[in-house]
């Protein structure tokens, strides 16, 4: 019901305004929208998609089938960090999604979930620790509810990132991700 309501709201706005080109949405709402309308035909040229867990298969499905031709940008973020940036799409990554934190305001560490002081090596899986430092706020080493692989710096973002994010496995039985 709530999902339907949210989709109806989005469709109402999309139909009423010709100039909308960019969409922020979740994977489930994007799927629901694409069942109702063709987003390219409605003038959408870019989509920021996030808010819930998104894996390589969804990234592929979205690019190949839901919104082919639209600039599809996976996003990861929260109120502590703002938005992390994804590594630009590269076919060689096989749709794997890597995020880089918005330095210098935020830094990721990928650590052993059972010992948060033990950093993981590159391409090793671990829990995400987020450190935030702004003029107004300092929050060191906050354990996120996510885990992923520690990713090497890339050309555009020359600092550590995290690849193939997913719900921290110890929480997987108690947390519902992405109601809508």
């Amino acid at each position, binding site marked *: 019901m709530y999902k339907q309501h949210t989709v109806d709201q989005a469709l109402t706005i999309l139909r009423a305004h010709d100039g909308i080109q960019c969409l922020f949405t979740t*994977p*489930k709402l994007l*799927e629901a929208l*694409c*069942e109702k309308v063709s987003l390219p035909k409605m003038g959408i040229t870019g989509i920021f998609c996030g808010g819930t867990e998104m*894996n*390589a*298969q*969804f990234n*592929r*499905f979205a690019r190949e*089938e*839901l919104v082919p031709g639209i600039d599809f940008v996976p996003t990861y973020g929260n109120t502590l960090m703002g938005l992390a940036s994804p590594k630009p799409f590269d076919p060689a990554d*096989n*749709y794997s999604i890597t995020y880089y934190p918005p330095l210098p305001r935020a830094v990721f560490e990928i650590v052993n979930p059972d010992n948060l002081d033990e950093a993981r090596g590159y391409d090793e899986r671990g829990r995400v620790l987020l450190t935030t430092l702004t003029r107004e706020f300092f929050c060191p080493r906050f354990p996120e509810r996510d885990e992923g692989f520690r990713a090497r710096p890339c050309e555009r973002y020359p600092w550590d990132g995290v690849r193939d994010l997913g719900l921290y496995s110890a929480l997987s039985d108690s947390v519902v991700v992405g109601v809508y």
Partner: protein
Amino acid sequence: MLQLPILRAGRPYRSLNSNVLTDIRNGQPVAEVSLANRGLISRDLLGMGAHRAELREFPVDELIEKCGTAAELFHDGDLPVGPGEDAVLSADAFVRCQSATTGMPQALCRANMEKIRFVLAEMRRVLAGLTRGVDLDVLDRGFVEEDGRTVSYLGQADALGAVLPSNSPGVHSLWIPAVALKVPVVLKPGSQEPWTPSRIANALLAAGFPHGTIGFYPSDHSGGMEILLRTDRSMLFGDENTVRAWKRDTRVQLHGPGWSKVLFGADRAGEWESHLDLLVASIASNGGRSCVNASGVWTTDHADGLAAGLAERLSTIEARALDDPEAGLAAFSNPQIAHRISEFVDRGLDIPGAEDITSKYRRGGRVVEKDGCTFLLPTVIRCTDPDHPLASTELLFPFVSVVEAPQEALVRKIGPTLVATLISDDPGLRRELMVSRHVDRLNLGALPTGVVSWDQPHEGNLFEHLYRQRAFQDEAQAS
């Protein structure tokens, strides 16, 4: 490693999400199964109307013929894992893979293959049973004339969704008639047993069914939910907790626990020894994993002797290697589940009114290991209290409670029963069972609960699930 793809309208699709099935004996990977994301399934379901229209163009006689071809391909053929795929499974390789990853002995895998073959080969007979002999032209023309009356049926769904189990491959025979009834299927296999539905799908496609007939979507629970929500007719297999949420949804045909039973009336309760073979077959055939396996023997008398005799017989069934031709017990793909089930039984035995009679006959615990596999040995519980929790328990191995109850209370006490076999000539008891809404399939006489007549419905009639009789008049016909 073998790759089992999703089949999207019959076309192979390899997902970036996958589940690796391992040999339960040594943990070695056997197959990587592609997993469909929920949105992919829902997107494909948007096209089912067109797929059904394509299938509707085939005469039913031709579809039945294709089922016959598929029967042989399924049973004996070398079939690719998807149209155009290089990987091919022979029947023997299929059995080895299925057995290794599910724990079902190879001999039982072959026996279940035969059930599937039979249903495909005998499709005309199966459809005659489901339609109660209506001229199958009704599927081609929409109506037929029978005994001077016009009979017309209207399809209720563009696809039959099926959320399938892992416990026994034989249940896949239940959805197969849909394709001959001109309704495409959208299958979500059990996580441990994608083998049978995948092979049936590929046999049907190789036999010439149009690609849109088959959707095969290994997935997580969200994928199964999507199929149930979005198909107008579906089947759901699962335990009591799984099916409970859908009980009020008439679009979903439920296949839950069986709680099947053998009943002895007062007139023949003393004959139990001569029916031991029937009891053992009812309880332990197919590894005791089917909903048609008896989990209860209810009698009006002689329960102690019956329980002891049955326990002695069942305790001769041993855990054997999966490739042993004599193997009759299925191993647990997750040993922890076997231990938890055994602990559950033991907790039940702490409640007064129940005793494990088999413990007197077997040489050790209920949980045994053999050839790297974990098994539960057959277990007979004598329940002196008909209301004891174990008196109405069904478990995933040969487990049975022997319960004594007065004849006048027997039918009232047995509770929901998928298959009841009654050993009694008492007309009153027979009549009482005939009208009991607790009982689905009823066998009068010495018929094992697992003996299925394929031209009769099972937990609902698939034809009536997919088609509704409607009024139809044609002026041209009338004149």
